[in-house]
């Protein structure tokens, strides 16, 4: 049985003459997928298309086999935490979640149980009986998250879900995303906090000016960026010796000894060859290696290489 996926086929969306996204082809597997790109790159447009809040000008979308034009089926499987910071007036946190679970068609007892469970998951039980209008920004963010997860969806779409959360809440929320990802759900997250994206993502989709510029597991995406040498950090006792030996080879383009004199940052066009070479140098010169690790196969580096400063803020 094929793995259920979120599929975009040649999807474009224009707002009048303004481009939202153009010719997007994606096949998103379960796990945590981060949408990364500067403001206006098309992240929210992509999420709204996925959720059927807007329709594509061209192309088609399927979310686990359901087209977004059928909300009555789609939102049995999907929960969406949007960026819109507005709520129906006069409702408490509990009523907000509970009322919309009833709109789903649930029985009152069922809705009550799931509401309490969702509130518990985002640590909002204590504030559940207060009006949403009286919540802080972080609490509003958490109650939106609770509303999105309350019906236990298989697909979670989260637009900047960490905005406004304090460090403790961020850590809890990220742990929640990880748990959902490990359970085999689709978790689609957009965030401009790249180091957090890096920590949680199984795969990334990099967007710029409405185009998908790269997608896949971050290491895979990094290795496709051929015009930027891979950075490898080697912690050892004699970095200067190592640097001298490495420069004898063509594929090493730069080497920089760290300030503490215990590390060497190596730039290479062929990481696999570098690792083989490193073994030989270590044996030949009796070096003591403490650690060898890629230094730029994270989202931040890939973002800088592919999008850089052209798009403004991520």
């Amino acid at each position, binding site marked *: 049985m094929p793995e259920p996926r979120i599929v975009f086929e040649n999807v474009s969306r224009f707002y009048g003459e303004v481009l939202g996204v153009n010719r997007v082809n994606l096949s998103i597997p379960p796990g945590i997928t981060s949408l990364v790109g500067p403001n206006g790159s098309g992240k929210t447009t992509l999420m709204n298309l996925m959720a059927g809040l807007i329709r594509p000008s061209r192309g088609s979308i399927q979310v686990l086999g359901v087209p977004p034009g059928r909300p009555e089926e789609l939102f049995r499987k999907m929960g969406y935490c949007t960026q819109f910071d507005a709520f*129906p007036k006069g409702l408490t946190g509990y009523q907000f979640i509970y009322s919309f679970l009833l*709109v789903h*068609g649930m029985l009152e007892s069922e809705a009550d149980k799931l509401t309490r469970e969702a509130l518990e998951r985002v640590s909002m039980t204590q504030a559940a009986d207060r009006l949403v209008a009286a919540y802080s920004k972080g609490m509003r963010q958490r109650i939106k998250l609770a509303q999105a997860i309350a019906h236990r969806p298989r697909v979670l779409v989260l637009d900047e879900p960490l905005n406004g959360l304090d460090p403790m809440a961020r850590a809890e929320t990220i742990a929640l995303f990880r748990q959902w990802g490990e359970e085999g759900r689709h978790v689609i997250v957009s965030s401009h906090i790249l180091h957090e994206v890096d920590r949680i993502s199984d795969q990334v989709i990099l967007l710029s000016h409405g185009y998908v510029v790269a997608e896949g597991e971050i290491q895979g995406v990094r290795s496709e960026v051929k015009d930027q040498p891979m950075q490898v950090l080697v912690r050892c006792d004699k970095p200067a010796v190592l640097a001298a030996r490495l420069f004898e080879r063509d594929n090493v383009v730069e080497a920089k000894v760290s300030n503490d004199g215990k590390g060497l940052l190596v730039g290479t066009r062929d990481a696999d060859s570098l690792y083989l070479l490193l073994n030989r140098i270590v044996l030949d010169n009796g070096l003591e290696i403490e650690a060898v690790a890629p230094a730029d196969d994270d989202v931040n580096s890939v973002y800088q290489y592919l999008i850089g400063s052209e798009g403004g803020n991520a």
Partner: protein
Amino acid sequence: MTWNEVATQPWMLWRRQVAAILRLELKKSLFSKRAWWIYFLTAGPVLITAVHSLFSGHGHTMAEDNMIFAGIFQVYFLRLGIFFGCLGIFSNLFRAEVLERTLHYYFMSPVRREVLAVSKYIAGLIAAVIYFGGSVVLSFLFISAHWGPVFQQYLMHGPGLSELGRYALTAALACVGYGSVFLLTGVIIRNPLIPAAVVFVWENLNPFLPSLLKKFSVIFYLKSLCPTGELPTDGALAFLATSANPTPAWLAIPGLLIVSALLLAYAAAQARRLEVSYSE
């Protein structure tokens, strides 16, 4: 029956969803700050008739009071109060949620847009009938209340109760008709004032329209349902009150309901095409 089980039984699912949406919408339609001017529209005639009852004395007949009420009903309620009240209630069912940026919560629920549109319409209709039905009934009772036992006799043992019922029914049907018109305009047109002006002119031009076109108007069906058809025919506003060729009730009521159902069906179909684009 749990959520997953009920999914296979659409009618039961829709019934639950309609009930849930009504819970949310009725609160908004009845008690929202947005509705203050509708309170004013409904309270106006009640206050005026109450004042009339308290201070007018007996220098006129009860039949004259009835005729005044017929005038208030046909000119004020049908052409102004219910028209603008329904404009406020029904065109805001979707529009206000766009302005408040909360429509997406409904759109992110597993509910058919058609069910959503119909539920919102029912909520608007209940609110409008409570507002205007209540206002009509209270105004009718207040305008002749000072006649005391004579009015009681007229109400309980004469044609009074039946007339009151017909006024209330006509008001409710007006809400049905105008409600469907303004739900549709609220769904398909961003600025409700333009269609409101067009519908207002159309409704008031009704006496001058060819007979076929007359049928595409709410007022066409309502005028003949009013219990008192013999308003004075002299004066500039006479055409507003009477119908030269009254439509029989057996035709007027189903006709209005069919036109309203068609408009509601079209609005529901259009709701399926609605997008959430608050910034535009």
